[in-house]
């Protein structure tokens, strides 16, 4: 499987043609039409997609009175930087942010560990039981996750064999999230596309399975590691229902759960300041790594096929 080109980076202008041809583009009517289309699309998107976020940023430093009475006015009662401080300490957004980061990093680590070692075993080492395992992993892709919501909860309360209760520990989020068939199959497909001769030559030279994995496979896998990392981190940041179930103590809850709980108790301005804090990190990361984000989004569509 190949990584498709980023749909956003314009290709060679001679090849990169859509419905409208280059010769038509030189016509005045088409150029005017495209200019209007461009302004309309960008304008609408800026208003609809970015508008609410800008309003969130503005309201994060407004008084509750201003937010509720004059939502479109620019700080009639002055800028309230104190909202951010109150959100950080008062509704514990600071600790929730740290928890979210820890959960995301753990999901990322265990997700990559399982996907990379598993993908390597299934695609390159291929022991006799590999086919059965692949089928069993593939099967879970087609079983809706709702089937096991309740029984997964009961499993986490009392893990089979070791009889541990993972409730209120990050393990209860990290470990179940690593059982993502999609990531394993994504990596497996990628590994199957790597040139086999390289591994075989290394094995003949006396390299063992670990050497091949560490020195040859991993350095060749940067693109797929990037895609899986991004998918894992983004989905970890978005998780809500599962952390709500398995992390009942306020001290370990991520932003999504803390903000949900604060929605009924906190003052509006403080809640909105907390929401803004929880948005700003993913938003900045997206703006910096937009190409990677958009490529992995297109990738997710291509691979689901």
């Amino acid at each position, binding site marked *: 499987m190949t990584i*498709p080109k980023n*749909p956003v*980076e314009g*290709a060679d202008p001679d*090849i990169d*043609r*859509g*419905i*409208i*041809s280059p010769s038509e583009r030189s016509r005045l009517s088409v150029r005017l039409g495209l200019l209007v*289309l461009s302004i309309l*699309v*960008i304008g609408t998107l800026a208003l*609809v*997609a970015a508008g*609410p*976020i800008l309003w*969130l940023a503005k309201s994060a430093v407004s008084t509750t009175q201003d*937010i509720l*009475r004059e939502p479109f006015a620019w700080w009639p009662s002055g800028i309230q930087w104190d909202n951010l401080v109150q959100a950080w300490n008062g509704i514990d957004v600071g600790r929730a942010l740290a928890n979210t980061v820890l959960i995301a990093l753990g999901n990322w680590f265990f997700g990559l*560990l399982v996907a990379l070692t*598993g993908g*390597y*075993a299934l695609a390159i*080492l291929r022991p006799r039981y590999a086919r059965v395992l692949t089928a*069993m*992993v593939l099967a*879970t892709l*087609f*079983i*809706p*996750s*709702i*089937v*096991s*919501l*309740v*029984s*997964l*909860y*009961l*499993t986490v*309360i009392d893990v089979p*064999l070791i009889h541990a209760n993972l409730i209120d520990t990050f393990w209860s989020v990290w470990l179940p999230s690593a*059982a993502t068939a999609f990531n394993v199959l994504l990596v497996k497909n990628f590994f199957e596309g790597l040139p086999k001769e390289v591994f075989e030559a290394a094995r003949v030279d006396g390299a*063992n*399975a670990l050497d091949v994995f560490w020195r040859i496979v991993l350095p060749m896998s940067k693109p797929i590691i990037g895609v899986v990392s991004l998918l894992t981190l983004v989905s970890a*940041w978005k998780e*809500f*229902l599962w952390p709500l179930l398995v992390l009942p103590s306020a001290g370990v809850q991520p*932003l*999504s759960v803390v903000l949900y709980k604060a929605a009924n108790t906190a003052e*509006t301005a403080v809640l909105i300041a907390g*929401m803004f804090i929880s948005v700003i990190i993913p938003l900045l990361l*997206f703006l910096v790594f*937009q190409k990677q984000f958009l490529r992995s*989004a297109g990738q*997710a*569509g291509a691979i689901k*096929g």
Partner: protein
Amino acid sequence: MTNRPTTATRRRRGPAHALVRWYRGGGAGNLLFTLPLLVIFALFSWWPISRSLVLSFQHTNLVTPATWVGFDNFARVFADPLLPTAAWNTLWFTILAVLIGFPVPILLAVFIGELRRTRGLASVLVYIPVIIPPVVAVLLWKQIFDPSPNGLLNTVLGWVGIGPLPWLQSAAMAMPSIVVQATWAGFGTTTIIYLAALMSAPPELYEAAELDGAGIAKRAWHITLPHLRTVILLMLILQVIGTFQVFTEPFVMTGGGPNNSTLTVLMLIFRYAFVIGDYGKATALSLLLALLLSVLSAVYLWATRKWNRT
């Protein structure tokens, strides 16, 4: 009796020998690399899935040992007067989500695909809502749907003389309002996927059509849309599978109200399991929902195969 020791020794040597051969052949290394996947999937995927089948035929309260009750859980699910409400609400959400949210990304992707200098900017803008964590997005839209005349949306509508509207406070308007929010949160992903598919449309087709005298609109209708056909079908099925499991949006936005008008099937499962503690009933309902989704998944799989072949 006399040959008993020899078989015993052969037996003892046999497996040991096989073990050594397996080890020298790299079997231990293979197993070592398979282990993380094996342990994680066994504990947190295969075991819970199989246990669901068992749980749905049992009464469990985690204190006394589970008892087998046959189809009692399923019978109690069907006897719940809230089930038709939740099922209809979920279907209503799906219908509205398809009507409101489905055509937008297709049109948008076709438009953005024709832009040159602003395509990058448009893609970034499209994807911004996807980056916002769902709970924050829902809480933000709860502010937008503020029913007072000074609410965000009501202020805007007030400029053109409409409203104020009750949005989430009315049983008739709550679900459509939630769908608008869910569409806002989700259209970016689909648009980017369509855009990626559009970029793979062969330029020769457009050139040929142009030589045949087909105008811009004709080319869009006869080449672009047919090229997207299979992706459109896949996105439709994926969207339906997703909307059947809708939870966060109604849960955070309205909690199922007003008057259960936004109670969905997944919220009902959540209530059974984590409010009442009736795990058997919850599992029975989730199996029923999953059965429905599996049919959709099968269609999806079939469509993907077809797509990959073309």
